[in-house]
């Protein structure tokens, strides 16, 4: 792979047109490796005989052009560009015996291997999807036998259920902000449940506030929630005809009592 070869490549008109087409399409690539694979096709040789140096140049040229056209490239494209620039310098300079690590040739060989492997995987995915498929080209029995009643209950769950169940438990805390803090909230159901039992004893008019459960009248937040729940529950009970409700004047205590039986 000589430098001249590469110059010729880059300067050819068709090459440049191809490169421009690529730039327009930059979103269509699945990352740097995909782009490199596409660029390598312009060399029109077997992937095993590809010139990695030329490819590096092509890629760097591509990035340069993108920069020129002010197309913003994702970070991984730039990382690849930096790496290829490094590779290029290794390939061009005579090897320094004192230097640690793999040689430029080894790195280039690995990149060629990656490209060949990616291409191979693409080829076999196409072959796989081109196969006859169940439910499209060949079919299973349409009418599964309905069998006699010798029932045995079998419980099923999929691995997905299991993992999601576990995830649900383990992530409960993380998502705390999204759920109501149940500690200081009394629900209508709770209040209703409680008052239904208590109301049997309330033959006389009693202040609704006296129905607050123990431990709910101190802390303002809890007190507020319990009051609201009790009030709503009282309205509910009044509606069903279980109790009567009255208030002397605005802001005065609200009182309730069991509806006389007569």
């Amino acid at each position: 792979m000589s430098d001249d070869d590469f110059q010729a490549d880059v300067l050819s008109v068709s090459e440049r047109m191809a490169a421009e087409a690529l730039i327009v399409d930059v979103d269509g690539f699945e990352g740097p490796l995909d782009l490199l694979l596409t660029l390598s096709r312009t060399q029109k040789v077997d992937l095993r005989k590809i010139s990695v140096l030329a490819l590096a140049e092509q890629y760097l040229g591509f990035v340069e052009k993108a920069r020129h056209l002010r197309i913003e490239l994702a970070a991984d494209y730039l990382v690849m560009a930096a790496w290829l620039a490094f590779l290029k310098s290794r390939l061009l300079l005579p090897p320094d015996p004192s230097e640690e690590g793999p040689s430029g040739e080894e790195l280039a060989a690995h990149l060629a291997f990656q490209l060949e492997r990616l291409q191979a995987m693409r080829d076999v995915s196409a072959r796989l999807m081109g196969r006859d498929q169940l439910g499209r080209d060949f079919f299973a029995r349409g009418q599964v036998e309905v069998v006699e009643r010798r029932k045995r209950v079998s419980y099923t769950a999929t691995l997905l259920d299991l993992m999601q169940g576990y995830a649900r438990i383990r992530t409960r805390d993380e998502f705390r902000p999204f759920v109501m803090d149940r500690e200081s909230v009394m629900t209508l159901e709770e209040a209703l449940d409680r008052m239904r039992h208590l109301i049997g004893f309330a033959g006389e008019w009693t202040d609704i506030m006296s129905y607050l459960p123990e431990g709910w009248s101190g802390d303002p937040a809890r007190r507020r929630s319990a009051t609201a729940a009790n009030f709503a529950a009282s309205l509910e009970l009044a509606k069903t005809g279980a109790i009567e409700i009255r208030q002397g004047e605005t802001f005065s205590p609200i009182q309730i009592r069991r509806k006389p039986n007569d």
Partner: protein
Amino acid sequence: MTDETETEDEAQSLFEAPPMGEQERMVEAVLFASAEPVTVAELTARMPHGSEPAEALVHLRKRYEGRGVTLVRVGDAWAFRTAPDLGYLMHKESVETRKLSRAAIETLAIIAYHQPVTRAEIEEIRGVSVSRGTIDLLIELEWIRFGRRRMSPGRPVTFVVTQGFLDHFGLESARDLPGLKELRAAGLLESRPPPVEPSEDDEDEDDEGQSELFEE
């Protein structure tokens, strides 16, 4: 005029009905795959022009005589049925499958991930008490069993998952269950807030994927 007739003839030969053996195969395949019995009219409509499914059905019926499966007529339609004398082989098929309750799934998941684990520990993780029925059901399903007693006060029993559990869930070992990070990476954490841009294109998510990739 003559030209047209010729063309017609050609068309005729182009659409010549397939040989009877081939028609028999077609009827066989269609009846097999269909969820309902199929009428002759339906067969005619599906098969190549000129086919005679009624005749193919006669051959096919003969072919399946005495086999484990027979071709039967249901009203004016046709269907394959297993031979009546083999009905006893089908009994085991009659299992009613029920989805495991959420409580049971969660309990099972905790045992799988934390085994050996005591009942109190399960309750602590789930935040609610575990009903007896749940544990009993899981034991009955042979998905969990008693492990060694814990060497702590009260020496509580522990629970572990069984080989049957691994078989059912297609796992090689309980240690192969993915961890939380892996679950999240695979998009299996349902309680996660939805992605900002629900786009069709998978690749849009790369950036996010990247950062998670390096957390692993």
